[in-house]
């Protein structure tokens, strides 16, 4: 009996090894595919490279060919609108208690006022998905990490809830789950004792949807203030907008090279 199990286990390991080789082959193929896409771009500019970069088969690891980011047009964001926050809460199953100062907040609306001109601006702030994330630097267990495609995540399997990352983050983007949770959604597992934050709707990105709940909600409400896209692709809408109008980083002085940029701030 034991023998059969061991044999079956060995077989599975073998098939895993085979998959590994296959993956290497596939990654080679996707690299070549990328080259073809890039050369194809010169002939037919526009969609092609974007499509090549975004369609990832489920069995392939994410690569640094793409870097996901968001551009928030502050001028199109209104103070009374909270659609992005509500959409984020619905998408990830966050139900903060009314008035709670500790319940998870993945995205929040900020209103800032220039005291000299009295000019008021309102905009959403979430994890800025830094290229050099301070949360990753300080994490003692390696739970805080940056995915190849630029998304900064918490691996809750290794998070010990020390909250060092929360201290390190200049954007106060992370929250700690203090209480037992119920009814978490299958796409966003989270629980007591771990730190969590905006994951740039990673389940949507991996499914090839290539958008975030906040960007979708903002578009649906007619503000179109949030643009999601690939910062590495010069033909993507986000890159074009950044090229034409520029985009500021919050606390650019820290040199973190954030993936979330603001226009008109």
């Amino acid at each position, binding site marked *: 009996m034991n023998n*059969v*199990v061991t044999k*079956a*286990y060995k077989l*599975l390991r073998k098939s*895993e090894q085979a998959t590994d080789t296959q993956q290497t082959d596939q990654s080679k193929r996707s690299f070549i595919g990328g080259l073809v896409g890039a050369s194809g771009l010169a002939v037919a500019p526009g969609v092609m490279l974007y499509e090549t970069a975004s369609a*990832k088969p*489920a*069995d*392939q*690891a*994410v690569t640094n060919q793409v870097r996901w980011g968001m551009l928030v047009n502050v001028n199109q964001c209104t103070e009374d609108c909270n659609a992005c926050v509500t959409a984020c809460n619905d998408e990830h*199953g966050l*139900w903060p*208690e009314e008035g709670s100062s500790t319940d998870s907040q993945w995205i929040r609306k900020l209103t800032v006022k220039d005291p000299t001109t009295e000019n008021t601006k309102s905009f959403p702030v979430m994890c800025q998905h830094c290229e050099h994330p301070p949360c990753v630097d300080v994490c003692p267990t390696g739970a805080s*990490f940056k*995915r*190849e*495609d630029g998304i900064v*995540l918490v*691996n*809750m*399997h290794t998070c010990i809830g020390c909250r060092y990352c929360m201290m390190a983050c200049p954007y106060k983007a992370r929250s700690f789950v203090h*209480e*037992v*949770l*119920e*009814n*978490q*959604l*299958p*796409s966003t*597992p*989270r*629980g*007591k004792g*771990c730190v969590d934050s905006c994951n740039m709707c*990673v*389940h949507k*990105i*991996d*499914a090839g949807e290539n958008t975030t709940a906040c960007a979708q909600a903002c578009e649906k409400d007619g503000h179109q203030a949030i643009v999601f896209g690939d910062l590495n692709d010069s033909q993507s809408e986000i890159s074009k907008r950044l090229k034409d109008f520029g985009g500021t980083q919050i606390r650019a002085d820290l040199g973190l090279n954030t993936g979330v940029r603001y226009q008109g701030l």
Partner: protein
Amino acid sequence: MMGVIRINIVSNVLIGLLLMLASTTLIADGNKVPAPKGDQCVEDPTWMRTNHFETVLHQRDETVLHGIRTQKHSLKNCIDCHITPNENGEYARYSNSEEHFCASCHTFAAVSVDCFQCHADRPESAVREAIKQHTANGTNPHQDMKASASELILKSSLLSAQSK
């Protein structure tokens, strides 16, 4: 000498009885668990019974770290297939029912896992339904079964203490 042999016989009979009891309990429990969808598990069931955690553990790192989301060995896929409603249309919960596919065996074997403190223990449609009810009642979906969740932790720690 005779005494030792007698003890051996007695203990063998006892172990045999225990094993018999164990297997009947397992079968009895197994019968209560609602049948999974489909006819075939993603791997050989015998192999899965001994090694399912290997596949889940492997897949978990692939998914979190590298965004590989193949269905075959994903926990979500296990849940979607194995957790089905009973004849009353209700979904068993890991925390309070031995009719839950995972709990049926883990409770018996005194295995304490914390997967379901974060991961959904039923398919998305069932979770969405529970959320909808909470919204209609004006209650917070996170507050659902706090009492029973802590009860479970107590129960499973008691069980593992007993098994030691």
